[in-house]
């Protein structure tokens, strides 16, 4: 299937299993994939990194942010700096990615932004408070960006995918130790949800939260 032939997807989070699966899914759908990793709190570097990514194929159609982290520690065992370090690895980097994604797509004629976070945006678990907090933050920021883009009529869709329980990448994604009651989904399942939001079939959806969780959030 080449339903995204000629399109360009910038993908952040390629160091984790879901980001890697997204790279594979968009590549298989015919898109040019530009992996992007920005580890900086200097906005000029974010701006330059997005400009370079956009220059690679002369356009950008999709920005997929699958940056994620999953530190397991109870509140009592975390210092404020530990807690905020984890919160920022998800929340702050996602906010920066979303900001520069919107600014880039505004210049290049619109497109789709998908923020991939966890079902922990909606269902809390013990011993991962920073992830729970950041996941909800990313979800609600997604909706805010979606509304701003819709109001500006700049043809940018911003939505979120909430990944369910994933086994095998506990450094980045919650597994059965945090979500024992949830069905297991694969990184590829999550990537297919992301891919769907990037297709024309999802062109009138924005600000949505798409769980790819085997029905977990329906409980």
């Amino acid at each position, binding site marked *: 299937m080449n339903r995204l032939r000629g399109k360009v997807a910038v993908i952040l989070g390629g160091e984790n299993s879901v980001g890697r699966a997204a790279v594979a899914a968009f590549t298989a759908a015919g898109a040019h994939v530009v992996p992007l990793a920005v580890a900086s709190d200097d906005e000029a570097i974010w701006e330059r990194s997005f400009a370079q990514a956009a220059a690679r194929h002369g356009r950008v159609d999709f920005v997929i942010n699958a940056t994620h982290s999953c530190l397991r520690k109870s*509140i*009592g065992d975390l210092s404020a700096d530990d807690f905020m370090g984890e*919160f920022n690895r998800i*929340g702050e980097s996602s906010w920066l990615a979303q900001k520069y994604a919107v600014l880039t797509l505004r210049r290049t004629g619109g497109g789709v932004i998908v923020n991939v976070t966890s079902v922990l945006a909606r269902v*809390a678990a013990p011993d991962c408070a920073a992830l*729970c907090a950041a996941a909800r*933050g990313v979800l*609600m*920021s997604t909706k805010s960006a979606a509304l701003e883009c819709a109001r500006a009529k700049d043809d940018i869709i911003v939505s979120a995918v909430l990944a369910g329980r994933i086994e095998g990448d506990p450094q980045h994604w919650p597994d059965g130790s945090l979500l024992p009651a949830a069905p297991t989904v694969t990184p590829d399942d999550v990537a297919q949800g992301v891919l769907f939001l990037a297709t024309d079939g999802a062109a*009138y959806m924005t600000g949505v939260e798409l769980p790819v969780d085997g029905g977990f959030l329906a409980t």
Partner: protein
Amino acid sequence: MISLAGKVALVTGGTAGLGRATVQSLAEAGAAVVFTGRNAAGADETLRRLRAAGLAARFLPQDVTRDEDWRRVMADIMAREARLDVLVNNSGVSRLKPLADLTLADLRFLTGVNVRGMFLGIKHGFAAMELSAGGRGSIVNISALNALRGSPNSTAYAIAKGGTTNLARAAAQEGRQQGRAIRVNAVHPGVLFEEGDKPSPGAIALYGEEGAKQFVRRNIETTPMGRLGHPRDIGSTVVFLASDLSLQVTGTEITVDGGRSAGEFGTHHGVPSQR
């Protein structure tokens, strides 16, 4: 009337609006109240209003983002009141701007108070309640509708207040660990006005003088209860959550917004179709 007699409550940011009203509501219900903040003049005004109502509370200066301030405040409470039953993480900041105008410095300002400050409150609150109240207690995080519904100009504020709300829900999962029975809830105020229907400085900064008046009018029109909220509406909700009437209420997202977010308009006034 709900009685909080015998309970000790700590309210951060009790030096203005919502926090001040919460201090008063808790004191009226019979709790011994300690409140903190950075604004000494605001603290004096809170104490003056309490005295005028025949009530009392104790003020301690505190920057909620500083671990050492939390240690000092908790040590002071352990020395004076010798227990802690209720913590209201009320100190919060807001900054609404279009995405392109927001900077990382704005985001860090927002997450510093709304996330880091409330994390420290929960961490030190858990420890103080374990030490002094048999591991029982109630913590309330004051959040915002932006944690429940999307709203323009709040990509950074939504990160912070989404964090505030889910920090409460995550902490509720840990509140029953290690023999504790500490409840943690998040409260979401709607649009609040203390004096008449005057627009807030924040609304004026964002929409201009005339736009802010319209903002207020539209908010009233689109709120099912037909009025804006008063900080005391939040205070009374906090009293319920602080009391033994809510012993089975934890990890919830309570909305006190006159019905707004149940309906079509949520935090804003509709979004134009892109088609």
